[in-house]
């Protein structure tokens, strides 16, 4: 019973994790860059919905497009003003560059919004729950799960059915060949960053309904996203979806197991330790992930 409940809650969390990781894997797939600032995009998405709610009393659900727009703009701005220049340097500079961006956005948020923990307490969905038989689901989490499914469907459709999406895939397979075929790879990169920022911004907009927003919230989620992306195989959309689910379930079910066997070591303090360990084991044992093809 306890386990079934943890499983279902884990799936809901997992859908959200997958949505957070989606952008990271798209960006990695297209241009082989790991965006450490990804969690900060999430954080700013959270804040944008929070402030829209706070100042204009817009319902968090209706304010969701705001967070998507903020995410897209952030993605585009970081690409055109910063990442583009990083690409000329060695890989080590790229890692540190996005790391610098991460720190900058964190402290920018701290400067503007202070270090207070903020959460939305009023809204159409906030605080309401749906009970199905013995299980109780928060509507906010259900909505986040549904949004994640929709987002995955849209991104999948975009990549596989539209011309731009196919060009994007071609760029991720072979940048040089793609540019010979007349694909403007620079624009493809920008599109990848826009998708990445937009999806993670929306995830943030959903998350703020049931999780505190604070300047350092990103690091936790970016580590989870790294684990998901690694497990799914860097650059694989399908992979990251299932990996997100798996990590979500793991994160929920381990404390329950710990509770059942009466051990503190699997307790809630360690639920993210398991995620870090999972990442480490996955990349060492199976670097290509579940569905990955890039080495």
């Amino acid at each position, binding site marked *: 019973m306890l386990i079934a409940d943890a499983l279902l809650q884990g799936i809901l969390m997992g859908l959200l994790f997958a949505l957070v990781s989606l952008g990271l894997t798209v960006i990695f797939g297209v241009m082989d860059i790991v965006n450490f600032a990804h969690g900060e995009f999430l954080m700013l998405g959270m804040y944008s919905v929070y402030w829209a709610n706070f100042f204009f009393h817009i319902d968090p659900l209706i304010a969701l497009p705001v967070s998507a727009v903020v995410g897209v703009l952030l993605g585009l701005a970081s690409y055109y003003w910063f990442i583009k220049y990083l690409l000329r340097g060695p*890989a080590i500079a790229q890692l*540190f560059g996005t790391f610098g961006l991460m720190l*900058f956005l*964190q402290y920018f948020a701290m400067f503007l919004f202070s270090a207070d923990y903020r959460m939305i307490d009023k809204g159409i969905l906030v605080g309401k729950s749906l009970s199905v038989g013995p299980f109780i689901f928060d509507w906010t989490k259900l909505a986040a799960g549904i949004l994640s499914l929709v987002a995955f469907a849209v991104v999948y459709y975009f990549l596989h059915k539209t011309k731009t999406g196919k060009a994007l895939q071609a760029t991720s397979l072979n940048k040089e060949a793609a540019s010979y075929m007349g694909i403007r790879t620079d624009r493809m990169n920008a599109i990848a960053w826009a998708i990445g920022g937009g999806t993670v911004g929306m995830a943030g907009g959903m998350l703020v309904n049931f999780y505190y927003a604070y300047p350092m919230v990103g690091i936790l989620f970016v580590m989870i996203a790294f684990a998901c992306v690694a497990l799914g195989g860097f650059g694989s959309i399908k992979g990251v979806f299932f990996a997100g689910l798996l990590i979500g379930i793991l994160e929920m079910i381990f404390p329950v197991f710990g509770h059942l066997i009466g051990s503190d070591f699997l307790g809630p*303090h360690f639920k993210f330790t398991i995620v870090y360990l999972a990442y*480490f084991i996955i990349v*060492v044992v199976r670097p290509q992930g579940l569905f990955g093809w890039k080495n």
Partner: protein
Amino acid sequence: MEKLKDALDFSDFSKAERIGLVIFSVFLLVFPLLGAGSFAKTVMIQFLLFSLFGMGWNTIGGYGGQVELGKAQYVGIGAYTVALMMVWWRVPFWISMPIGILIAVGYSFIIGYPLFRLKGHYFAIATICTSLVLKDIFDNWNLVGAAKGIELPIHDHPDFLYMQFKSDTYYYYFIMALFYIGLFYMNWFRKSKLGYQLRMIKDDEDAAESLGIDIRWCKIKAYSIASAFVAVGGGYITVYNLYVDPASTMELSLSIKIALMAMLGGAASLWGPIIGAAFLVPLDRFLGSWLGGQKGLTGIDFMIYSALIIVVSAYQPRGIWGIIEQFRKRGH
């Protein structure tokens, strides 16, 4: 003997660099006599400490070219070994510190063996993960004080055995000595076989492998040297603060600072980590006390700090030393 000569031999540097080193050394030696306040002394101690960390990181991160972002776990190991042995068994610093180094090196071999199957991004993220796992464990382990940390018993009299002093001047000279040991070691290291092997690996792994270099083993060795360096620094932090907790010794931000200072100064150069620390530590400190203390300006110090990282990584990935060398070439 040969090694010692290599370590003390700076003759392959340009004249300007050697003169710079002498002036710098004289300055370090007389600094406490200049009547500096305690704030300036703290900044200098931090500077020397982070130079030491940066030099350690430089072996694997600079010469080896591996983006290592988990050095804080070894700082923690060094710090906790000294603290715990002192609290539990009253073991003097001079015994517990070498044991801390041994534990750090042993642990780095265990971690390094699977870790160096990885490359690039995978490796960088994995180093963060290992460091965070250890921090989580120490945060929740009641035996070692959990998140509260441990306080060291304070002695009434200055004690060389336990390295406890009333005055910062002693701590200053102590870290200075460690700094010079580190500097001479690095001067030897860059000319050693392993040093050349690492640079070869950084340039072209396939070529290095075809020449019969055992890449993974070289990286593991460099990684454990780096770990030993930061473990010494960790032990120093314990006796300097007389207090140790996971937040101050194992935080991710410490790992990042270590790597950033070396990167910003110029990775794979002997002076790089020192320049980076000389630049960032005072910046960090002064901005922190000047801007961070004022109401409504929290965070602006780190904003400036990170903006600097952004600019340097985008325009001169070889760091400040890279900029200096660029100017020097233009001068010729």
